């Protein structure tokens, strides 16, 4: 049975102010922003939920889709698509993980429509780009008629598909400090059931500095390992300020379970996710050890 969409309502604002005014005027009427729609459409088809209300952002591309440097930060407009992220040389220089993550989102057709803002606001812990924002200490710019506020990405998701976005707010941009230092180590891996177009069983993004043989600013960020994207803080703290060693790698890997709370579902098992998380953290941290990496597993 095809989904019925004729009782859905769509409002299409012509500029950002118009959009924010509309949201302010219809605060509690259930209007949700619609960007690329690549997850929304699947949901409508799957759930046959009628009568939904959509704030269609398709005319806000010009103000909200740019990727540019702003002082010492990089600013990505919320409507930039995954394809934009993948192709941006600015982003490739600022943090290669972003392009890597965007390249494994869905199919090419999806990447051409799906937006970075949609991926974030959608609030799924399986969003492929999300651990990268976490690892980058990215900030989100939220706008409403009341003004603009900046929220660290880490505080944005509060639970499974729950965020701090108010019903009159739009996510307008992602901001982060570029990381092009050669002494930084970066890592991204999506583990999915097939080579392409798979939903993540687990996503891992990591960044760490290595200065004079000591780890610093270690960020270990995971998707699909809990109701929200999660940083493995205990492991990060364990590694912070220490020289990477075999025992440290093992200790850090064993500490992950303190922060990660994956579940058994129809996509994978908690046990598998824990095992892979440990192995990827081992690979990331040990990757810095040169000849001293631990024996094979």
């Amino acid at each position, binding site marked *: 049975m095809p989904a019925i969409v004729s009782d859905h309502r769509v409002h299409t604002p012509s500029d950002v102010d118009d959009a924010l005014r509309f949201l302010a005027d219809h605060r509690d009427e259930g209007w949700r922003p619609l960007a690329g729609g690549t997850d929304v459409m699947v949901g409508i088809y799957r759930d046959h939920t009628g009568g939904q209300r959509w704030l269609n952002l398709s005319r806000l591309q010009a103000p909200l889709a740019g990727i540019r440097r702003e002082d010492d930060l990089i600013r990505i407009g919320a409507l930039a698509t995954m394809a934009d992220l993948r192709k941006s040389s600015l982003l490739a220089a600022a943090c290669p993980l972003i392009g890597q993550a965007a390249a494994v989102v869905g199919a090419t057709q999806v990447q051409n429509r799906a937006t970075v803002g949609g991926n974030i606001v959608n609030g799924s812990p399986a969003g492929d780009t999300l651990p990268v924002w976490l690892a980058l200490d990215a900030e989100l710019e939220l706008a409403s008629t009341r003004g603009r506020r900046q929220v660290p990405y880490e505080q944005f998701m509060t639970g499974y598909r729950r965020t701090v976005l108010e019903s009159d707010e739009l996510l307008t941009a992602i901001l982060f400090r570029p990381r092009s230092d050669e002494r930084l180590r970066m890592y991204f891996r999506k583990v999915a059931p097939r080579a392409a177009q798979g939903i993540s069983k687990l996503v891992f993004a990591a960044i760490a500095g290595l200065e004079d043989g000591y780890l610093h600013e270690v960020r270990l960020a995971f998707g699909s390992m809990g109701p929200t994207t999660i940083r493995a803080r205990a492991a990060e703290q364990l590694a912070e300020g220490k020289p990477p060693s075999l025992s440290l790698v093992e200790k850090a890997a064993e500490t992950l379970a303190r922060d990660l709370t994956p579940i058994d579902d*129809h996509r994978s098992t908690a*046990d598998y996710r824990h095992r892979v998380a440990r192995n990827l953290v081992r690979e990331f941290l040990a990757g810095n050890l040169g000849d001293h990496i631990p024996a*094979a*597993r």
Partner: protein
Amino acid sequence: MPATQNPVTSFAQTAFSERALGQNVPRREGAAKLCGKACYVDDLPRQDVWFGGTVRADVPHARLLGIRYDPRFDWSCVVVVTAADIPGENVVPVVMSDQPALTDSIIRYHGEPVALIAAPDVETLQQALDSVTLETAPLEPVFEIDDALAAKVLVDDSDNVFRHIDLRKGDAVAALQSADVVIEGEYHTGAQEHVYLEPQGMQAEPTEDGVIIRGSMQCPYYIVEGVALLLGLPPEKVRVIPCVTGGGFGGKEDFPTLIAGHAALLAHKAKRPVRLIYDRVEDLRYTSKRHPARVRHKTGWTRDGRLVAMQIELVLDGGAYSTLSPLVLQRSAIHAAGPYQCDHIHIAARAVATNHPPRGAFRGFGAPQSLFALETHLDYCAAKLGLDPIDVRRRNVIRPGGTLACGQNVGDDAAVGEVLERALTESDFVARRQAYATFNQRASSSTSVERFRRRGIGLSLFMHGTGLNGNAEGFFKSEVLLRGNSDGKVSVLTDLMEIGQGTQTIVAQLAAEGLRLPVEWVVAEEPDTAVSPNSGPTVASRTAAVVGGLLITAGQRFRAKVEHRSGGPILDAYAFRSAVAELVSQEPLQVRVAYRPPPDFHWDEETQQGDAYLAYTWSCCVVALEVDTLTGEVKVLDVTAVQDVGRVVHPLFATGQVEGGVTQALGWALMENCVWSEGVMKNANMTDYTIPTAMDVPPMRVVFLEHPHPRFPHGAKGLGELPAEGPAPAVANALRQALGIHFDRVPITPEIILPAWEDRQS
């Protein structure tokens, strides 16, 4: 008499130099599909058509007490059909005919159809479907094979066993006693969804005294029988005109009879055309799947690796109704001992009832399950015996004059050993196995990224019986019809369905071969049961072989008839065409050929002994793969598939069949995982039921051996299902080399591989 038993010789005698058989003639079905002009059932004109939907049970096992219709909905604007509205018999006729079209008493699976609704538009239909609730009294459900066999709760009306087959050769029990070594193993295989591109769909249109059915299907005459019985009509009042059908893989063998019946019931009551089309989720949840299986092996060996005795216990989970399970079970059992010579075999096979949606036909038809078990078990045994699995197979392969488990003497049709040797050569098996052993050894002491990689290569040796089981080909008496046209071209009439394999093209090709005419002058008519003869179902790898043989013979007889009436041999093709046109202008010119079993064919259904099949195709599949030991993910590096198919009709299509079958089987082996909970498929969408994409398809080397089989006038044996059988055990055997672990079930997902690997390391 120009038509002789050997078309190869007779063809050489003609002046016409272009052969049809074995040529990559242009694909007839291609253009319309590429241009989007092919008309699938949902592309039919929508004028005056109502849309049908199904009210389904929401519990797996229950007594149906009543159907409640919400009075807030205006029921006058829709048509509702329940079991009480069925004019004929409330049954889906298959083998045992135990499945009702609509249940009125016991609900046996979650999703079982209880009522049908037709409405003028889909929105009204959806509202109506949402306004029905079922009153049910729950019964204890049965989901596991052991619980079904325990028979504490009965799903069917007897003992939960749809069919029990005992296949005996020699005395396996006694022979096991005398074996040097006895090795046991237990194997499990999971359900698999067909994922044909086009979901199930039918449209029924009432006529003055009958009904026309259009839709997506493999077997038009199954639908004639089913709808006639359901509506209480004589079969000739049911006309089936198939639409272009977007894939089948067996999923459109038995299931379409049910949905066609539903559409017919709605059209009958609504007195207007009704279209009933499943969306992907409905299709995934409620249509048939490959039977899950449990196979136990107890194998007796001599110390040097000769098979002494094979005791095999095989159980298929048939789901809530028997559908084709009795026949799937039979093929599963007959193939369970594989292409090996062993004098003492006992195969005990049962298909059991559970409260899952009924399972059905799927490419391979039971053989992939039993062959996965056998071919994985053989490598396991070789390891236990300390022997090379290649040598173990070499020692035991069936040779000319050998007899299979069912007692069938394969005669000269025994290229198993040759297929094995060719596959070893083509894949460079021995050298690569050595290279991977070195690779793995180096990886285990490496400090580079290589340390997380392990490689392995494995193979499987297997066969597939061509055509329907035992006496079924004789029972169907398939017919083909050749008809001269006024322009001198020849039309071929069959009910064979094009479901992606290129049927229209090869039907024309084979008739052209028999006629010794250019293939362009042969018209393959679209099936329509008002005019097409019953050529049997488009299943069982029988189209090119069994019906293909009839087409060759029909072509030869047609030519003989034309030459006879025209007064002598006509060597020139253009002269022949003129002669056809001339004869047709006088009176209708047609030739009808019906299947008759070969005189030396004998199958005893009682004892399950004799010629189980007309012939066997033999194949060896080699899989090389790499495992990422950080994640347990498997990357298939390449596949080599060597097969003896008798004769290749169309090399490009044949290669496509192998590549597609291998890919489908790799999906079954590694990622396609039906997740069941309380009888419901939890991952019933294309996001979570993952099939391979192009990115997962490895390079493949496909090699055909051609030993024409004397039971077919063109020598061609069946092909379509064969390639689905070998990859899964070859994957398991390759993983054995890569990781040193015995995997005894499919799918072998990373969730199974990683813990097994890590536990082994610690």
